């Protein structure tokens, strides 16, 4: 996994609440493997008309937000299905951070596994960032994960919370399976005891 330390990128405003994973990546593309890439289908039906022409009104198609690396979103971003392809599509497109008042839980978890940082800020702070970005003058946002800060257009600084364990994995770009396997002995001892306490879970071979 690519480590995430800091990021200075164009931020696109998507203030609509409840942007679900079906909108981020429609189910009809889910047969693809992660390696095939998903970025071309990110927000497919919002970004493109049925005939494949870009919808001018969609934020990522507007010149001001070209090459956005950050999305500032409305509440409950990434709600819906557990499809990790929603995160793959964002990161494959080049988005490495989403800032919102709240996230779908599974999307939030999936993000960390793919080097994408989801940042929760209070609704009024997200609204302020959205308003600043909408003006299309200064559209860059800077993220410092170590310091846990978001520096917005005009130099506003917000502090954000992040789970220390996940922060560490992100900073180091560490794969968590390898990390977990360091605890193999404890896991094995736990399993032995667990299986003994619930013998009815054994499936007759």
């Amino acid at each position, binding site marked *: 996994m690519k480590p995430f330390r800091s990021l200075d990128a164009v931020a696109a405003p998507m203030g*609509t*609440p*409840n942007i*679900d994973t*079906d*909108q981020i990546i*429609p*189910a*009809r593309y*889910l*047969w*693809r*493997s*992660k390696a095939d890439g998903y970025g071309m289908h990110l927000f497919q*039906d919002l970004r493109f008309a*049925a005939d494949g022409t870009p919808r001018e009104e969609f934020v990522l198609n507007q010149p001001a937000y070209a090459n956005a690396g950050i999305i500032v979103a409305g*509440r*409950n971003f990434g*709600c*819906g*299905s*557990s*499809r*990790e*392809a929603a*995160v793959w599509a964002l990161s494959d497109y080049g988005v490495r951070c989403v800032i919102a008042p*709240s*996230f*779908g*839980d*599974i999307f939030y*978890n*999936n993000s960390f*596994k*793919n080097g994408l940082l989801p940042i929760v800020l209070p609704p009024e702070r997200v609204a302020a960032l959205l308003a600043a970005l909408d003006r299309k003058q200064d559209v860059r946002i800077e993220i410092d994960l170590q310091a846990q800060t978001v520096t917005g257009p005009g130099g506003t600084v917000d502090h954000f919370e992040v*789970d*220390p*364990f*996940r922060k560490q994995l992100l900073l180091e770009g560490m*794969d*968590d*399976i*390898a990390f*977990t*396997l360091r*605890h193999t002995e*404890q*896991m094995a001892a*736990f*399993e032995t005891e*667990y299986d003994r306490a*619930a*013998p*009815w*879970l*054994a*499936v007759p*071979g």
Partner: protein
Amino acid sequence: MPATLFDKIWAKHAILTRPDGATLLHVGRHLVHDGSSQAFRTLADQGLTVRRPDRTFATADHYVATTAQGGARSLDDIAVPERRHLVEALAANTAKAGIAHFGLNDLRQGIVHIVGPEQGITQPGLLMVCGDSHTATHGALGALAFGIGSSEVAHVLATQTLWQSKPRSMRISVDGRLAEGVTAKDVILAIIAQIGAAGGTGHVIEYAGSAIRSLSAEGRMTVCNMSIEAGARAGMVAPDETTFAYLSGRPYAPKGALWDKAVAAWKELPTDPDAVFDTEVSVDATAIVPMVTWGTSPEDAVPITGRVPDPDRAPAERREAMRRKLDYMGLTPGEALDGVKVDRVFIGSCTNGRIEDLRAAAAVARGRKATIPAMVVPGSGLVRAQAEAEGLDRVFRDAGFEWRYAGCSMCVGMNGDTVAPGQRSASTSNRNFVGRQGPGARTHLVSPAMAAAAAVTGRFTDVRRLTGG
């Protein structure tokens, strides 16, 4: 210290907790479906094997076709080769790892969240996960079950564990008697309308109260299924006699002395009387009527007796989004929902694809004729067989409904089971998102009985008018 059902299961599965709160949890049972090939690939890439194949169970659901060209269903019925490969990959990956797999020609095949409880794989007190957000369904039997992403599936396959920070707890107490014609689906839609699509974010919900107690195990599954639509990680109901009666005799449920031992342990699980939840919500069951959604979020649910809301009367910050929804859905503010024309009907999914759901729909369809295309997709091969044994397939076929094989089907717009652009569907599934059932599809979520009522009248219809309820 008094503990909740959730606390108890969490504690039983916690291997270690780091000072920062991240807990390594043991996974009691893991369910896998045909969207898991990336996870198996990740495992292979890292040279890892499946740690506990004996605690892992698989079935194909998302990509299987629900039609059969020949006498029986085969892989060839899946028209798109890439999707066929996903179903094949599941069979190959599980065979290699020694994981029990209910494949296409196994009567036990079906939607993973129908199959788990039906087989008795799902049990009280278990921590269960599956790479699908509707895993919360299994919580209806008193398990702590939640959906995970593909990387986490790989992690669970390799280690039988998962890192989690403990979510907050919420109790939703639904008290009072449900009126005639009001179902579990209406209960959960009413709950989501009340607390919102993000109302349960960061929480595990325990559904309690007399109305939940009075539901069958299957009805509780319908409620828990849509916990994710309320933003929650999981939903659960304390195990009781209803739970035990449901599980008794199921293939993977314990037998004999082990059954007694298990039940004794399960009886310890319900929330202690003095346990405290982070959030408490109460819902008046007597006020719930059959529900229907008007918008593109499950929170946009209103009673069938209600009207399409008017953005002009909504809080300013919601107006724009509401207008966009109404435009997408082709509805007018103030329009009565009862009577809105429907183009097609889908009865099935992990929310409402169980035998009781089919019975409820058949009760409305019996002796009537569908006036619009309607499709019934049983949740599993066993549900299908049971329905056929009860003659429900005849009822549906005689009424002009299509009778399909088990799978996710039109819930997710798979294999051509889609709603055409601009078409309005009455669907017993769980998501009315933009494009969920196909680009431009207008999905309205309803109960099986309401879906059948829409099929026979061609409009949203208060089912109580047809059944005299």
